[in-house]
């Protein structure tokens, strides 16, 4: 694969080196290296089962929650390996937020959903400050106008697209450096999807964003860097525009022209 340093002369926020992920004896990710920078939205594409989610979950150590899962190699966040014993996972996850495939708001009020993160991390010292964080996060997630009059309604009463934006607001509320999104639109209708994509473009630059998507159009629309995964390896990583117009690898070309996947 391409050395990402040649590609992007910027300091990477996340740097994965020779990462392999195992489920028991099964190797789901095989010696993958990649740099991820703040400036871009990075898309992971590839046929289902190729390990995109697995790799994404290794950035915030959500793989730790799966019994039998094991990660080898190193992933550095701001130059510091997140898999050393000195790294506190709780702190790591405050710095690397995640949005899941199926919207999963807490069955609590809209306000509580957003306030939860800042509260457990002790980020605001009083109610007024917390109110402010909640409002700012909902505004950034493009949800404020829709919910400002019903903050005490249940988060689960919102529509699917609103729920997903609530989940994004929840992640933003702790002011992370990275936001991981695992097919955030796959459960949404086209209009809700468009809103999320718009939101991702707005958030770009404020956070390093990594998005897994099975939609090539989506990758093309929202991302500036694309990594194509196949059978647990990165086949090709580069500028999104180049990957889609002029892929170097035959397998990439086959995939984006819909020959398999």
């Amino acid at each position, binding site marked *: 694969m391409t050395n990402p340093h040649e590609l992007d002369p910027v300091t990477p926020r996340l740097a994965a080196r020779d990462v392999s992920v195992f489920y028991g004896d099964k190797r789901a990710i095989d010696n993958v290296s990649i740099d991820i920078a703040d400036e871009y939205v990075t898309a992971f594409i590839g046929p289902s089962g190729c390990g995109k989610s697995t790799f994404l979950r290794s950035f915030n150590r959500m793989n730790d929650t799966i019994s039998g899962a094991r990660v080898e190699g190193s992933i550095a966040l701001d130059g510091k390996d997140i898999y050393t014993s000195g790294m506190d996972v709780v702190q790591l996850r405050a710095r690397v937020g995640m949005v899941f495939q199926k919207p*999963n708001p807490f069955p609590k009020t809209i306000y509580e959903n957003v306030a939860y993160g800042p509260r*457990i991390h002790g980020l605001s010292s009083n109610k007024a400050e917390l109110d402010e964080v909640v409002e700012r996060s909902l505004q950034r997630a493009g949800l404020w106008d829709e919910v400002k009059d019903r903050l005490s309604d249940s988060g689960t009463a919102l529509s699917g697209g609103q729920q997903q934006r609530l989940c994004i607001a929840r992640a933003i509320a702790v002011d992370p450096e990275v936001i991981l999104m695992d097919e955030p639109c796959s459960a949404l209708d086209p209009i809700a999807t468009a809103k999320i994509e718009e939101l991702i473009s707005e958030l770009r630059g404020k956070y390093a964003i990594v998005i897994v998507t099975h939609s090539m159009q989506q990758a093309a629309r929202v991302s500036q860097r694309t990594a194509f995964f196949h059978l647990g390896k990165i086949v090709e990583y580069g500028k999104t525009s180049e990957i889609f117009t002029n892929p170097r690898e035959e397998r990439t070309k086959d995939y984006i022209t819909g020959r398999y996947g």
Partner: protein
Amino acid sequence: MNSPSHQQRIVAHLASRHAAERRFRALGFFSVALSALVLGFLLFTILRDGLPGLDWGFLTASDATDPAKAGIWGALKGSMMTMAVTLALAFPVGVFAAVYLEEFAPKNRWTELIEVSINNLAAVPSIIFGLLGLAVFLALFPNWRSAPLIGGMTLALMTMPVIVISGRNAIKAVPPSIRDAALAIGASPVQTVFHHVLPLALPGILTGTIIGMARALGETAPLLMIGMKAFVATPPEGFTSPSSVLPVQIFLWSDEIDRGFVERTSAAIIVLLAFLLAMNGLAIYLRNRFENRW
């Protein structure tokens, strides 16, 4: 596909399908009616025999040799205190055990063994728990014979596994996506459990608890084993003073030859049922409150 013969086949089939539907409904209705009938008959005879004797004097007096003076207060208070001890011991221990087994315990041979043991414990006949109470609790505290504390401890032994099992099922039913959401925002495993999993599992846990408590309330055999069958003419003053409990009182009165005790027995059953209903009501109230929070 939609040829006339195709349609005819479906129609020909339809009649027998509707008939099956009707048969099942009839069967279901019959079953419900039968149980309602039995219950109704039971309630009717008990109310008929017991209501006349259910007056203030009966509710405030304690056991006596003269049926006209015998009351239920001693046994009722004893039952309440026993249940309080049972709940105070079985609920926290049961819930913590369920949480630990479901959320934290490593999956190995030891935890498997513990799981199987707890499941078996729930099926152990209650008199065995009585024997255990006799052999262990009474051996340790011989002065507390017949006391609500010992009774409650004994009943807690048999209620705890019920709470563990229902608790585990309720915890298992909480969608994993909620745990993912909490962990991904940086909640620690313990915070995830206490902020998210337990509140969602609580209605189910409460349902299991009430089933366990209802069983414990009606339990007679283990309490007989630890001596709660003595004639106690005063309500228990504390958790360590000798006491009777409702089901044992009913058992003792039903054994009396004096005709006057027949009415007392029925009246005591009514009190026991009312206690049970009150406990159920409380559980339903709590469950609704927790469910409405979101």
